[in-house]
């Protein structure tokens, strides 16, 4: 059975602080600093372990997984639009959020594997970084196709996606980590970017909890459909990810991380992109569902389930 990791308790105490109206507050500069740290550290760690692969072998597999990720918003959109009865703009924006990924959920998954001493492929990080692109582009197309009003600012949107802080720092971290790994010069940087990773994640989850609890009211008011979607959709997407990981011959850990990536959804990069691409969508809905429902579901319940899924597929293989 999967035990809850101490680090996710910080999320619980963040939520609780919000619920009991504690005056606990994380300074904005700390929140932003921690998120810069996590992005670089996740990238760096991935890059260091990528140094053990022949990079050319990896790229086609990684590329396919990234491209296939575009299926996620394509599946989410009709559900949201025709069952959930959201506007085209909102359905598209929410699809983009769920197609995109959450680096913190990924980090919780990595920590879960570390606690189990399970191996996973380092290049999953690169997949995570690149998955933003098809998700946000597809989401935007869905939100705006045939819609009247101002023209989509594609130039501005692609610039935002490609140079946005998340993708940029993840890729920068991967490259520096890869270089350090190849040159065997990881040594003094690991004290910061590896040893402190969990501690920083703890702080960040505390703040995530505060943020999630401040979003809950907005989600609840949207009714039971959004809550059901926020739980069932990631489960489905996770199953697809675990299956794909198995098909592509990833390790059990790698398949589980792919499931986590497919199941997780964005609350940082996607809102920034949708602000530009789909300004008429209501961010309260998409951020609320993503951070208020799916994020906590994933880190507490989803991650162990995705592990079981990956395990199950790999059992078939035997």
């Amino acid at each position, binding site marked *: 059975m999967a035990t809850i990791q101490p680090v996710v308790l910080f999320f619980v105490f963040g939520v609780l602080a919000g619920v009991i109206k504690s005056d606990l507050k994380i300074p*904005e500069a700390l*929140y*932003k600093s921690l998120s810069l740290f996590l992005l670089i550290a996740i990238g760096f760690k991935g890059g260091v372990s990528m140094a053990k692969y022949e990079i050319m072998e990896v790229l086609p597999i990684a590329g396919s997984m990234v491209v296939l990720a575009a299926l996620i918003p394509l599946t989410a959109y009709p559900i949201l639009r025709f069952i959930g009865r959201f506007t085209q703009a909102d359905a598209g924006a929410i699809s983009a959020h769920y197609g995109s990924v959450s680096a913190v959920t990924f980090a919780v998954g990595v920590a879960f594997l570390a606690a189990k001493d399970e191996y996973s492929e380092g290049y999953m990080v690169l997949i995570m970084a690149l998955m933003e692109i098809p998700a946000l582009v597809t989401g935007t197309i869905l939100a705006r196709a045939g819609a009247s009003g101002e023209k989509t600012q594609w130039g501005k949107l692609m610039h935002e996606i490609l140079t946005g802080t998340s993708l940029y720092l993840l890729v920068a971290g991967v490259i520096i980590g890869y270089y350090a790994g190849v040159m065997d010069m990881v040594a003094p940087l690991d004290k910061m970017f590896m040893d402190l990773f969990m501690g920083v994640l703890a702080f960040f989850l505390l703040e995530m909890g505060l*943020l999630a609890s401040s979003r809950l009211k907005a989600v609840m008011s949207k009714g039971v459909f959004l809550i059901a979607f926020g739980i069932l959709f990631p489960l489905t997407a996770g199953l697809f990810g675990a299956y794909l990981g198995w098909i592509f011959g990833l390790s059990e850990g790698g398949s589980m991380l792919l499931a986590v990536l497919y199941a997780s959804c964005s*609350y*940082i990069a996607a*809102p*920034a992109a949708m*602000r530009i691409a789909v300004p008429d969508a209501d*961010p309260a809905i998409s*951020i609320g569902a993503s*951070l208020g429902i799916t994020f906590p579901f994933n880190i507490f319940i989803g991650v162990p389930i995705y592990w079981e899924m990956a395990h199950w597929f790999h059992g078939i293989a035997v």
Partner: protein
Amino acid sequence: MNNTIVMKRFEIVIGIEQLEQLMDLLDECGVRGYTVIKNVGGLGSRGVRDPDDVLTEEENVMVVLACKEEQAQKVVNELRPALKGFGGMCLVSDCLWLEGPAASY
């Protein structure tokens, strides 16, 4: 009041994403002085904008600007069409510039 010059005071509130455009526009009008306050929030036609919300990242700026009457009309003429796109608000009122510092208007 002694030692003062009659002037117009502008108080403009817009989203920070349009600040650069506004500053270019003021520059073109020949404005030689303004004051910028960032990290401002508020309520308007686009709803609440709260710079403390780390997820939505909405931030307004307030720009205060004093200039002579002749220039004021020029600023008004240039600003109006731009503000239509920007949203936000622009208030104009009368004021007196206290002489003393180097003229920056």
